[in-house]
């Protein structure tokens, strides 16, 4: 189902997962090629975040397979992070008592050298200059938009090949959402592989190469964003119009 002819960097095959006594994902399959921008949309509580958590290892796989660069994904989140999967979770999940800089440095926890950390830090400050101004501020004192920026910056500091972004616009003002999506657009243009979860397909219409509609733990529709936006009956049934 990849939008590209490149071999997949991330491949999901009949993925089933969930929480104690609750099956959330009920057989998800798709591939993502290097440089693709893929979005998963769907109503709240139907498994979008669980999908990203399953890929990054926070939610264990019940059955099925996840492959990263053709190799089976190891089960633990820290080893999956080591394979270049950077997860920017919903609600930021920052380290609240650390400064912005310390949060960013935690993103580069597995970086091979000081020079590489400095290079990534320069890159993040260029893309998100506000973080440079706020570098010594404690994360818990930041605004919602700034926290989201730190979350994205921390994900970039991981230097990952695959970026998983969970609902970056959730709970933010329209102006901030615009800024956040401006950054995501830059990331996409730089050739990064992005899997983004979003509730509103219109936000990714010009960005995503491919879109999956997730409902009750299964993918009910896949295709280009423009095609979904033209299908009023799908929008009405799954996304409330």
């Amino acid at each position: 189902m990849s939008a590209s002819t490149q071999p997949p960097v991330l491949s999901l095959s009949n993925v089933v997962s969930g929480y104690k006594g609750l099956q959330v994902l009920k057989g998800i399959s798709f591939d993502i090629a290097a440089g693709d921008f893929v979005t998963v949309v769907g109503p709240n509580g139907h498994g979008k975040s669980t999908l990203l958590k399953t890929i990054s290892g926070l939610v264990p796989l019940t059955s099925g397979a996840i492959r990263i660069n053709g190799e089976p994904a190891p089960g633990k989140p820290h080893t999956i992070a080591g394979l270049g999967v950077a997860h920017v979770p919903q609600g930021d999940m920052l380290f609240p008592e650390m400064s912005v800089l310390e949060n960013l440095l935690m993103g580069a926890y597995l970086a091979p050298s000081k020079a590489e950390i400095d290079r990534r830090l320069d890159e993040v400050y260029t893309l998100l200059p506000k973080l440079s101004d706020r570098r010594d501020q404690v994360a818990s004192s930041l605004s919602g938009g700034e926290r989201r920026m730190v979350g994205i910056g921390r994900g970039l500091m991981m230097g990952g090949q695959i970026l998983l972004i969970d609902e970056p616009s959730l709970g933010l003002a329209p102006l901030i959402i615009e800024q956040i999506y401006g950054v995501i657009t830059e990331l996409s243009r730089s050739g990064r592989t992005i899997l983004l979860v979003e509730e509103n397909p219109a936000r990714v219409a010009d960005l995503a190469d491919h879109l999956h509609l997730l409902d009750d733990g299964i993918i009910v529709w896949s295709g280009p964003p423009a095609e979904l936006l033209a299908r009023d009956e799908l929008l009405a049934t799954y996304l409330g119009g």
Partner: protein
Amino acid sequence: MLDILTAILIAGLTTGALYALATVGLSLVWGSMGMLNMAHAAMLTLGGYSAFTLCTVLGLPVIAGFAGAILVGAVAGGLLYVLIVRNLLKTDKATFESNVMIATVGIGIALENAILLTYGGQPLKQPISATGSFILGPVSLPYQNMLIVLVVIALMAVIALLLGRTRMGRAIRATAQNREAAQLMGVAVNSVYFQVLVLSGAIAGICGVMVSSMTQLSPPLGNDPMLKAFIMCVVAGLGNLPGAVAAAFGLALLEAFVQYVAGARWGFPTLLFVVIAVLIWRPAGLFGRVQIRRM
């Protein structure tokens, strides 16, 4: 008047330093793992007896006794993780806090009894101690008290640097603040837990040497500092490291003052009264978060 105030200050600072050392080990483990290590007292005692064995029994120099106490404490902390904590974490995480508390109570009792069987119940003299005083006009500063305060200050600086400036320290703090996010950054949290218990054990070892140098070695040596350290932790807010150190010095000075004014028997009841008052006023402690994140 000056000599009385100095005596209270010296007693308060020395006791505060010892309390702070005991409290840091306990608070570090609670803050990063959500684990109340009830065997901390026995690990402290083990450190004191290790130094005694190396210096008095084997005749090694003082520095070897000190290093040995640190090493034995660290090994005890590591073994506690490998043999007990790691396995409890594999089971139901919801009951980890209570299970690990009960398990470490058992380990503490077993260790204390093992020490009793090995060394007997009679008090022994800790060979690592300094005699004499530094006289400054009307004020006399015992070298032993100065040694304790200086060692504790140096140790606090090392711990602060370790937690604040190193990759390992950042991983420990990150795990304490948000375990899942730390994992996503590539932190192996089980390895962090191991490091925390090793570090805490090493601190307990040093603390055991320091406490026994002021009193004497006996199998229940660690129980009183552990009880006081727990009070300091609760007053500060469980898991808050700088707060615990501040509470340790503050309460120790208060205890020394009350003991001088009202008599030695009123020191401990006063501490308990302060704990009750603080918990009524601020249930999460003076510097504590309302909810402590558990691993």
